[in-house]
């Protein structure tokens, strides 16, 4: 019996094309680095609102930069549901991993030398875990690489006994730079298309 060709690959290709502008990476990296900088300057609490500002900044930038070059698309309900479930999973994982690590290490539930050694790496490890879930939810494997980089940054931080905010600043900067490179390539490869004509 003949097997009917599936459009799954086409859907994946279209979905990946949507994220190839690098704007998400730039905004996410800048947000993480911003939280680190805020912590360094002693204004950590207002910086917690930075992700919300980041979401709005991403939407505006997408409308101004990406849409005139690539247009806009609404994905299928099935894909949007998967995306929402993925984002809920990211948030839940962040809360569970973060809450667990913070109560165990920072609030003295454990006194093991390893936990104390790893303490400065906790914030960047939480972000690494969120990056890994983002890779799984969106199918964007560069976020897997970011997760690994962030985890390695955390290990380096713990090894050098530096303050936790340096990990967020360094990790965020790496992600933002990668995003900026992608954005430059996107701007080069996708010029603004002339307005819709019937020529």
């Amino acid at each position: 019996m003949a097997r009917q060709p599936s459009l799954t690959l086409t859907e994946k290709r279209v979905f990946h094309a949507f994220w190839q502008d690098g704007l998400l990476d730039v905004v996410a990296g800048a947000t993480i680095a911003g939280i680190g900088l805020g912590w360094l300057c002693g204004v950590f609490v207002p910086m917690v609102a930075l992700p919300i500002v980041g979401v709005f900044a991403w939407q505006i930038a997408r409308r101004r930069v990406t849409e005139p070059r690539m247009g806009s698309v609404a994905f299928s309900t099935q894909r949007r549901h998967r995306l929402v479930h993925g984002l809920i999973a990211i948030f839940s994982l962040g809360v569970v991993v973060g809450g667990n690590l913070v109560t165990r290490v920072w609030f003295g539930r454990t006194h093991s030398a390893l936990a104390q050694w790893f303490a400065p790496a906790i914030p960047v490890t939480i972000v690494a875990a969120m990056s890994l879930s983002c890779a799984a939810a969106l199918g964007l494997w560069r976020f897997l690489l970011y997760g690994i980089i962030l985890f390695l940054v955390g290990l380096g931080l713990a090894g050098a006994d530096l303050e936790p905010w340096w990990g967020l600043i360094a990790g965020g900067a790496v992600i933002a730079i990668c995003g900026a490179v992608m954005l430059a390539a996107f701007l080069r490869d996708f010029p603004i298309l002339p307005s819709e004509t019937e020529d």
Partner: protein
Amino acid sequence: MRKRAIELNARDIASLDKVLHEPARLSVVACLAVVQHADFVFLQSQTGMTGGNLSAHLRKLEEAGYLTIEKSFQDSRPKTTLALTKSGRSALDAYLKTLSALLAAIA
């Protein structure tokens, strides 16, 4: 009696949808089949067609009743939103079924 190497039925070949049996139009329909809707610029960026060429193909698909075209303005720029109709979706399904049956016959 020797069995024919290729058993292709001329009627099956003729039954292929002529509107869809064109690479440019098929790529437009395949792209629209996997999303809810997309705008003109998105289709242009994904298919690599010029504006005029894409417009011509969209008109043929609209005449066949395979897609809906909605025109509006966004930030004082014209915006054309396109979506596949139910009949467009079933035409694509039928086309893929026929094509894969034909390919299976010669494989």
